């Protein structure tokens, strides 16, 4: 069994046990001059915290504030100055995280003149990047359905972002691969039929094979673990559909269930041979025709490619499963992930919404926003908050 497969079992077991005691969760959240909030303090609970209110009431801003405590920036994609309340010079976000009984204070302040400062347990951090990993979050919004609806680039990005966080060697190999790819494309574009031109292209080909094989081998080795996290999450939301992941590669492919352990040397050989077969074609067309930058993470639902036939609800369910599966895959030491779900219930039927609520509760802690209220039966033990014009009322 590969090391990844062993972790897959752990993660699956973790998701099944209700809110383990050692999980990190956010007990209080404080906002100051943040978006439409002057001052706000919210007490959160473990499990699901459900925020409902009309459009523009400030629901998403609460999730956004949590993202500042985790990664020191807005996962909604806004700049720091955009989130400052109108007429103010800066903003502050604070929170008390809990890991078992141990409290941990995190405070982030931003002013236009001084920039950002983060304090964890009273200590000012030298670099903002030191905050990453203290509190882990996963953000999901309706636009994320592009993961399954869009082209392969969206799914490669999900895979790459996950692996870059787990393996710094992967990050370096990927950056070098992209750089080498651009250099090789340029060399192919200016290629002319002479020996020197071939020598130049060959050098870049060999380097492309080196970096690219590291990328492919790492993706293939990670796939079974990732696929099991995603399928497991998916099966919790949808009882009827079965989701599978596969790697559809231009060099090597693999189904999600196979233990796809390929030695880097074997991948190198396959990659080199594949490029050798199309070398004339590449020289004629002037760019690189295959490699990990053209591979796809295929999502199959009940044995068929989801992208070509899935319904709106099926896409949304699959995208949520991919994002939550990613969170589970990243949570290697079981410290818990705070799941932030922004307005994702609109296209889910009540059964799936209920299943999702149940799933998020088991994840540790989740914050969810919606414009509609959910029936008591669906919400279970969740904590509900009404949001209206900068006021948050616990119900």
């Amino acid at each position, binding site marked *: 069994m590969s090391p990844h497969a062993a972790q897959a079992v752990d993660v699956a077991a973790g998701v099944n046990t209700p809110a383990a005691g050692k999980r990190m969760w956010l007990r209080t959240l404080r906002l100051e001059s943040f978006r439409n909030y002057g001052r706000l303090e919210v007490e959160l609970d473990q499990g699901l915290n459900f925020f409902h209110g009309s459009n523009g009431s400030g629901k998403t801003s609460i999730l956004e504030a949590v993202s500042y405590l985790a990664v020191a920036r807005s996962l909604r994609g806004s700049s720091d100055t955009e989130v400052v309340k109108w007429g103010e010079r800066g903003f502050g976000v604070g929170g008390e995280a809990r890991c078992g009984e141990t409290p941990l204070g995190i405070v982030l302040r931003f002013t236009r003149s001084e920039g950002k400062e983060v304090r964890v347990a009273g200590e000012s951090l030298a670099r903002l990047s030191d905050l990453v990993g203290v509190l882990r979050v996963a953000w999901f919004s309706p636009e994320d359905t592009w993961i399954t609806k869009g082209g392969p680039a969206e799914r490669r990005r999900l895979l790459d972002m996950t692996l870059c966080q787990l*393996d*710094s*060697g992967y990050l*370096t190999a990927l950056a*070098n691969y992209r*750089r*080498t790819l*651009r*250099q*090789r494309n*340029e*060399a192919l574009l*200016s290629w002319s039929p002479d020996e*020197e031109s071939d*020598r*130049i292209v060959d*050098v*870049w080909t*060999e*380097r492309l094979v*080196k*970096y690219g094989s590291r990328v492919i081998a790492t993706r293939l080795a990670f796939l079974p673990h990732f696929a099991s996290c995603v399928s497991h999450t998916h099966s919790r939301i949808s009882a009827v559909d079965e989701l599978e992941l596969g790697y559809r590669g231009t060099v090597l492919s693999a189904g999600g269930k196979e233990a796809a352990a390929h030695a880097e040397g074997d991948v190198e050989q396959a990659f080199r041979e594949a490029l050798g077969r199309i070398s004339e074609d590449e020289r004629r067309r002037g760019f690189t025709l295959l490699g990990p930058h053209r591979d796809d993470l295929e999502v199959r639902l009940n044995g068929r490619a989801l992208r070509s036939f899935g319904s709106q609800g099926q896409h949304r369910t699959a995208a949520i499963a991919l994002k939550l599966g990613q969170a589970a895959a990243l949570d290697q030491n079981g410290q818990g992930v705070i799941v932030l779900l922004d307005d994702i219930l609109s296209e889910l039927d009540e059964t799936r919404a209920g299943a999702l609520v149940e799933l998020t509760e088991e994840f540790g802690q989740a914050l969810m926003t919606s414009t509609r209220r959910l029936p008591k039966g669906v919400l279970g033990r969740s904590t509900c908050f009404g949001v209206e014009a900068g006021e948050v009322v616990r119900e």
Partner: protein
Amino acid sequence: MIGFPASLERLVQLFTRLPGIGRKSATRMALKLLTSPEAECAELAGAIMDARTRTIGCSICGGLTEDDPCAICSDARRDPSTVCVVERPSDILALERTGRFRGRYHVLGGLLSPLDGIGPENLRIDRLLDRLEGKTIAEIILALNPTAEGEATALYVARLLSQRGINVTKLASGLPVGGELDLADELTLGTALDERRAV
């Protein structure tokens, strides 16, 4: 808003053209010069021109020197059969500080980069081949940065030299001396593991 007098502003502007110098540092340097004795300013101006006119590239290795050939190339005690290939003249200084290398150097003057239009003809590769022609060469050491361009250039040069039957090596990458295992980043430690050697 009133700015600096024109001549001071010009000096600040010229300083910001230098690498690593932003507007703030440039202003501090310029203001410091304003209050320095005139002789010091003249010395600085003279030194800049002096260095600029006297320093040339060695016609053999490409390193910086005032006399051609440079001190290393004309030092009979340095082994001419071992040549270390580097990207820039400053790399020679780094390697010399180790005090471990007794051979000669060769500066390429850049790295292969199709994106920047830099091909082998723009580097001092021909000069390297000319230099080795008809000589007995024990080893060529490639000391290029482990970047995408550095690795590609190393491979290109290595292939050319191997065709001529020359022994080519490259610098090892691995653990920093005096470092601790658990503090090394994964990539460094991984490379060190891949390139381990017999004890």
